């Protein structure tokens, strides 16, 4: 049987028995690419998660090489929890229903300037110890910054420029509701870890990104990541 051999650069012995000397040796399969593709996954500002898939449709679970591009760097992926990337997170809000305002505080529990401006939106989220928001607020509605009570406290409206929502008939103690806004601003130089879970099945690569959410209080920048994969034309089994 004739053989086809191509030596790597710098090697001269075509009869070498060390197969690693060869670029190609017809006795051994080369590792071939089935396809290369990518997906952009974007962090949800409110849930603190992101997900995506890259379809390969090979019908088997392939070997693959995968990278995550973020901030001009291409991260090697390993296993179920790498890379772990630091993301900026900012803005804590609480509702003071009895005094009818929302206030802004930092990761240390100190009140800070809210820095919201006309046109900014805000959504509310129950914390685990509450069953409902102060009337008439709900979690599914987007509200609007209305005006300042002070530099750290503000009123909200149901529509842009609408009347101030009256929270004083609402129930619940103050400081036990949380809110997030479209106005992401790195006020506090505060970071959280984003953890990547990446695995292949017989049709696609599955990507899930999760971050520590501090019980739902943290507002995330809507960071995006590009996940890139090279699928090898060979099943892993």
């Amino acid at each position, binding site marked *: 049987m004739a053989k086809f051999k191509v*030596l790597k650069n710098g090697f001269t012995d075509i009869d070498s028995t060390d197969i690693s000397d060869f670029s190609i040796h*017809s006795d051994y*399969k080369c*590792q071939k*690419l089935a396809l290369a593709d990518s997906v952009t996954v974007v962090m949800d500002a409110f849930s603190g998660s992101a997900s995506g898939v890259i379809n390969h449709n090979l019908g088997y679970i392939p070997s693959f090489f995968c990278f995550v591009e973020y901030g001009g760097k291409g991260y*090697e992926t*390993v296993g179920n929890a790498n890379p772990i990337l630091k993301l900026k997170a900012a803005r804590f809000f609480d509702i003071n229903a009895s005094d009818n305002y929302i206030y802004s505080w930092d990761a240390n529990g100190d009140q800070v300037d809210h820095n919201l401006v006309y046109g900014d939106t805000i959504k509310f989220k129950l914390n685990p110890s509450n069953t409902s928001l102060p009337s008439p607020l709900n979690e599914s509605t987007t509200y609007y910054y209305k005006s300042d009570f002070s530099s750290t406290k503000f009123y909200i409206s149901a529509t842009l420029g609408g009347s101030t929502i009256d929270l004083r008939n609402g129930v619940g103690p103050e400081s036990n509701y949380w809110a997030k806004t479209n106005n992401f601003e790195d006020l506090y130089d505060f970071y959280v870890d984003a953890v990547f879970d990446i*695995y292949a099945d017989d049709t696609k690569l*599955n990507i899930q990104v999760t971050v520590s959410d501090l019980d739902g209080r943290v507002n995330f920048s809507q960071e995006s990541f590009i996940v890139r994969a090279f699928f090898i034309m060979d099943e*892993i089994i």
Partner: protein
Amino acid sequence: MSRMMIAPANGSIGSTPSKDMVFDSNLDYMLILSERTDISDGSGVLEITHGLGYIPSFYHFESADGLTWYRPTYSGTGGAYADTNKIYINTYDPNIHVRTIIWANSQDNSDGGTKNNAFGNLLIAKDGYDVLEETDLRRFKFASSAGILKIKEKRTITVSGTGDGTFTNTYYHGLGYVPQVYVFVGGIQIPTFYSQGGGMALSYSFEVDSYKITCTVFTSLGEPTTSVDFNIQIMLDKIA
């Protein structure tokens, strides 16, 4: 368009599927630009200059003694990453041996065109490119100046045990050198570590030396039995 195919000894062109061919010029390959071993100095990050001007694909193995190699897990942020000039590998301990395979393929799989690193006596350009004009490996399916990973064998190693603990199983590959190995459990690239809180954890890992591959499962999940299939692809290409 001409096509170059090499069938395996037990196959034939026309009947052997592309994935089982030794080589098929209709397909693309990961082209090995360089392979190198560096030693960490304990400063925290090992920096490897590639100077390519684009972010290359890469893969790395580590070893504490240069004999037994593994893929690291990272409990903190970062890990290993590349930019357009360097590869950065978090290695906090000194004297860690790091074997890095740098592919010519950019992570974004673009065709480039500005580099002058494709040469050799056998060149196959990608579709649309003139093999006599191009010099950038990213525009080639094959160039004999670059290596391609060659598969020795695929194998499943089952690690089993009873109760909590650390369980291993070993396969003797018989190569006499440390081969590159790519290890998966299901569709997850190994190593992995799952923490379920409360002291409950599960991890899969492997080590390879010049004689054997050892797969390890650590579990403290309180399950009565453990049985995990490690799917291993053993290459003929060397780590050391």
